[in-house]
């Protein structure tokens, strides 16, 4: 069932995630995923899913390497406890700090996998009863969460509208009418999703860096001494012992992470901030406790994010939105049908999560310790130059059509402008993925009901889902207002957006 090729894809994903976290922490995790999409598209669905799981689970937790060594978080989640984990690394040792975060991430990951299996199987059973009316409300749930997930509500709405508008280019899915194609045959097939992602994330990142020229150069600190036995003892004995002493804190933070991951639109950074802030509220808290809570919180969201993605086809965060787009490009439609038609693939996904969390994570964590203590990070200006060429090659490799390359300057500049004006790219990608689904479900429901809008409330389950959507809007508005009143003050927050 889990063949050698799938295992190899998982391992390669893990290694890529490790390299991303240790060698180039300045490259956002989503961009690192987008850059390999042109390669993943050539793999089978199981191999592609395994590689993505290996990459995402590893890239998130090795993001701590940058925090420990140079006080630069490798991921937005890591920014939540960068000060504390850097302090632990400075006062104890980098091996101890990374051992702490690896152990916390492993336990948090295990707890979230349990919820992933139970949650997605249960949710998929319920979703089997859904018609296009219920699906409309579920898709709307994802849209609402994505919009509210943006730092500014107005920008979230505009971003989603931009994304959905891009999704309307091409042949209309319900009526087969060409829209906004201007008699150009290239546009009939619509905007190529993966090329759009490469332009929005990759090209805009390079343009953004060029506009910020000269770049702030960060260099890793090479450790003066290397004692393998001492590293082993610190990483595999001392750090787990400290984690055991804080087991209740670990459990609480993991549960917070799973809960946040379950909510569509909320990601690992929210969980990391929330769980580490709970510890900061204590008067005599230690930096070890904050780092441990943040690492467990952020890593336990990863599998949680996948629950709505797999069971409902609603992405949990930007990363799973990209994964959802990749699945669609590979001909897989996540949702109840996936659990009915391709249960084998679903179980391979569970197994990939388990192997990644339990087998690979401790090994990769230790490798990260060795790497950060032996080598220097690759300068950001060289990395970005390589990113530029990979964007070009990747955009061309998808369809081998030079016309796709016109999207790079067009959407690259668009992404640059949006980022410069404080937009996050998450709602735009969400609009690209969920926009056509929303349109299809609304149109189908109205055709069935002969244009009667009450059809959206007639069935009990549809009415219940509509109510959940309303409650979600009210809750998110309330949370947003509360967050605006008491925003955590940190110079590291928001340095990375995706």
């Amino acid at each position: 069932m889990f063949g050698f090729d799938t295992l190899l894809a998982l391992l390669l994903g893990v290694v890529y995630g490790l390299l991303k976290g240790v060698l180039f922490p300045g490259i956002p995790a989503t961009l690192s995923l987008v850059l390999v999409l042109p390669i993943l598209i050539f793999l089978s669905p199981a191999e592609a899913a395994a590689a993505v799981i290996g990459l995402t689970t590893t890239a998130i937790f090795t993001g701590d390497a940058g925090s420990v060594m140079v006080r630069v978080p490798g991921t937005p989640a890591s920014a939540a406890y960068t000060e504390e984990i850097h302090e632990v690394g400075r006062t104890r040792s980098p091996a101890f700090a990374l051992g702490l975060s690896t152990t916390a991430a492993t336990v948090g990951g295990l707890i979230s996998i349990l919820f992933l299996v139970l949650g997605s199987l249960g949710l998929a059973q319920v979703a089997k009863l859904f018609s296009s009316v219920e699906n409309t409300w579920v898709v709307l749930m994802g849209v609402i969460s994505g919009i509210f997930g943006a730092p500014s509500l107005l920008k979230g709405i505009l971003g989603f509208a931009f994304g959905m508008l891009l999704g309307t280019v091409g042949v209309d899915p319900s009526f087969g009418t060409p829209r906004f194609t201007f008699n150009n045959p290239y546009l009939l097939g619509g905007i190529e999703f993966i090329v759009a992602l490469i332009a929005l994330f990759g090209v805009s990142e390079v343009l953004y860096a060029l506009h910020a020229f000269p770049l702030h150069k960060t260099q890793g600190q090479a450790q003066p001494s290397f004692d393998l036995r001492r590293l082993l003892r610190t990483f595999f004995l001392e750090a787990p012992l400290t984690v055991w002493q804080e087991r209740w804190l670990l459990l609480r933070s993991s549960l917070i992470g799973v809960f946040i991951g379950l909510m569509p639109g909320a990601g690992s950074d929210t969980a990391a901030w929330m769980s580490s802030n709970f510890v900061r509220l204590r008067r005599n808290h230690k930096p070890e406790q904050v780092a441990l809570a943040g690492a467990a919180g952020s890593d336990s969201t990863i599998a949680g994010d996948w629950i709505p993605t797999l069971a409902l086809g609603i992405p949990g965060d930007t990363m799973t939105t990209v994964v959802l787009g990749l699945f669609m490009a590979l001909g897989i439609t996540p949702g109840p049908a996936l659990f009915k038609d391709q249960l084998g693939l679903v179980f391979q996904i569970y197994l990939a999560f388990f192997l990644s969390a339990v087998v690979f994570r401790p090994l990769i964590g230790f490798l990260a310790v060795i790497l950060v203590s032996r080598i220097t990070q690759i300068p950001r200006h060289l990395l970005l130059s390589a990113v530029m060429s990979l964007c070009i090659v990747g955009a061309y490799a998808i369809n081998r059509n030079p016309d796709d390359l016109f999207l790079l300057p067009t959407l690259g500049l668009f992404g640059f402008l949006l980022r410069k004006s404080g937009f996050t790219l998450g709602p735009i990608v969400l609009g690209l993925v969920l926009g056509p689904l929303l349109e299809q479900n609304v149109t189908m429901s109205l055709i069935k009901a002969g244009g009667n809008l009450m059809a959206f409330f007639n069935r009990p389950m549809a009415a219940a889902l509509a109510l959940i959507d309303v409650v979600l809007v009210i809750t998110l508005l309330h949370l947003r207002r509360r967050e605006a009143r008491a925003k955590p003050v940190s110079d590291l927050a928001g340095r990375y957006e995706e």
Partner: protein
Amino acid sequence: MQEERVWEALVALIAVFLGLAVWHFSGSLPPGQGGAPGPAFFPRILAGILVLGGLALLARVGRQAGLKPFWTLRRESFVRMVLLWSALWLLPWLLPKLGLVFTAVVYSMLTAALLGARRAEVLYLGLVVGALVQLVFAELLKVR
């Protein structure tokens, strides 16, 4: 913050312009039948959101006094960015002529030079990128 407002104003104008254009072009799409919304239904909703949202963003930016035009902000780096962006438009013409590997090398070296890399770094990067693209994309994935 001041700089962000300048870019916000530009994006707001784009949103309003795009919204109006979408409204105009969706007018030629066929109407819906039998209670179904036609293919223009969602584009028109989106057009409305873009125009109203863009105007709201403009109103917010309008309250800020003394904003400079965007092309005067960080003038030197702006020129570097525009140079790379202009070079990207040549890609559909350049790639079939130069081939995948050489195009990747040229653009990585150009980006590195614009980002202020030293000459040795630029050359070294070109070699690494060339080898990587040749190995992964040309040999392994057979992308030509």
